[in-house]
């Protein structure tokens, strides 16, 4: 599913003498991988690299059997980015669109029909209890609502790969549980999930493999033991579950 070979990522100089670490890992389809490590250990950088936010300078990377290394084409990048959802530490939104349209945008970019976009977006808005905020613009809602909206936008396409950065876990407990229950559902359908955190306690909410960063030796390799060992094909997007009863 995701294979990294000798990918050099920067770290804090206090953590590694060279200020760099070489990462090689293989993550199977449908598995969950927790990235642990202190600040500056390269967790976010690794997530951003897999999210194709940075061009890869060294090493090689394959995502969903496609070359995503230094010679990645624009076409492949577009195809892969439609299958990857990245939930960054500070999610950003388009001020020209309201919350509904911000969440619906990835579906439009995936060329879904208008009726399906309305249906899917309505379902996920109900699921994250954002119905009453749907027509407000990002500047008109509070930070918690924005985080809910960011979760909804990341999950609406039921991505093949989900990358979650730590600050999103500072959500309210109810929302966190809602979020993790959705990820569990997606994982069962074959979504591969990578989550970055400094706090080990969150990993109890979603069982998975652990990777401690930074990796000391530049040649250290890591192969995750898949959470679901059987190989499964990626299922097409399923309709979102019904919103919980108030």
């Amino acid at each position, binding site marked *: 599913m995701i294979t990294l070979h000798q990918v050099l990522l920067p770290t804090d100089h206090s953590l590694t003498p060279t200020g760099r670490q070489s990462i090689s890992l293989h993550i199977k389809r449908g598995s969950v991988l927790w990235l642990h490590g202190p600040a500056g250990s390269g967790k976010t950088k690794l997530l951003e690299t897999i*999210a*194709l*936010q*940075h*061009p890869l300078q060294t090493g090689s990377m394959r995502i969903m059997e496609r070359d995503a290394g230094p010679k990645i084409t*624009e076409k492949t*990048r*577009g195809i892969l*980015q*439609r299958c990857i959802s*990245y939930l960054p530490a500070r999610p*950003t939104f*388009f001020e*020209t*669109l309201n919350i509904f*349209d911000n969440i*619906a*945008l*990835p579906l*439009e*970019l*995936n060329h879904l029909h208008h009726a399906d976009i309305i249906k899917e977006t309505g379902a996920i808005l109900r699921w994250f209890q954002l119905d009453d905020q749907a027509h407000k613009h990002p500047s008109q809602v509070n930070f918690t609502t924005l985080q809910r909206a960011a979760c909804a*936008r990341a999950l609406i*396409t039921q991505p093949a790969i989900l990358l979650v950065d730590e600050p999103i876990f500072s959500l309210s407990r109810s929302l966190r549980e809602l979020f993790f229950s959705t990820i569990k559902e997606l994982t069962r359908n074959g979504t591969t999930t990578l989550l970055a955190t400094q706090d080990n306690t969150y990993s109890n909410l979603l069982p998975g493999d652990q990777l401690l960063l930074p990796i000391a030796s530049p040649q250290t390799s890591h192969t995750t033991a898949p959470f679901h060992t059987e190989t499964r094909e990626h299922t097409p997007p399923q309709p979102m579950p019904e919103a919980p009863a108030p």
Partner: protein
Amino acid sequence: MTRLSRVVPRPKTAFLPLAFCLITWLLGLALSIPLGTKAGLYTWSQQINDTTLIALPTPLDGAADLQTAPLLLALKSAFPEADPHILPAEDIQENLSSWTTAWTGTLPNIIILHASETLPSINKLVLQQAPHAIIIPPPAQKSRLWPFINSLKFNAKILAYIISIGALLLIATLLYGHVYTTCRHTAAERRLLLSLGANTQQLSNLFANRVSFMAFLGSIGGDIILIPTLAFISNSLRPLLHLPPYHHLSELFTPHLFLPVSLIEILCLIPCFIAAISWGLTQLFFHINITKTHLSL
């Protein structure tokens, strides 16, 4: 309007259409200068005296009469554009009376024609047909003015080239600056769009469509300003060409009078040309800037 088109950056200032208005005005002026100079010089040169007189000796025995008809026929067949014809007796009488006292003898036969460049050939033909004929050529204005006219035409062309190249460079600089600024200011939004799965080509197409539309609108504005400008310039020059001031705008484009009619067709095509070139350049500059941004991330 799709959600994607609402998030793709759009030109927010009126600067772009105004700049294209100015560029169209300059391009239109650049095209008008050589065409206007050519047409104006043509009108001017038409007013230079090019009358050639061929006087046949006073007939004593009717021999000149016998020479006149074949010579006229030969001239008409060889130089029809010179419009050779026999000057009427009254005109000859009037002309002779202005030179000297009353002419008492038999009036000479005079053939009149209009020619300047073909004069040596006419001379040759006349001397073959009527060796005793006297040829009175027109004043040498045209031959003396020829270098000046050529120089004016050449300088008009050079000026037109300089303005056109300047306008095209201005378009390229303006678009590059606009695309560069937009790409820098909206880097975060573009990165978000790409991370959500948007295609770079989709973004550049939408952006280029907007820029070319703005350029098209500005260019139409430039055309609207250009026509009165040309009317003003040509009207100011008409007294120099001994032409009466025009009463209608259509007279501006009267063939062989001042500006050619084809110019108005070219002026109508300028907005389309500007829109097309803006679209292409925006696409090019957008991709260059995107590549730069990708590398600098």
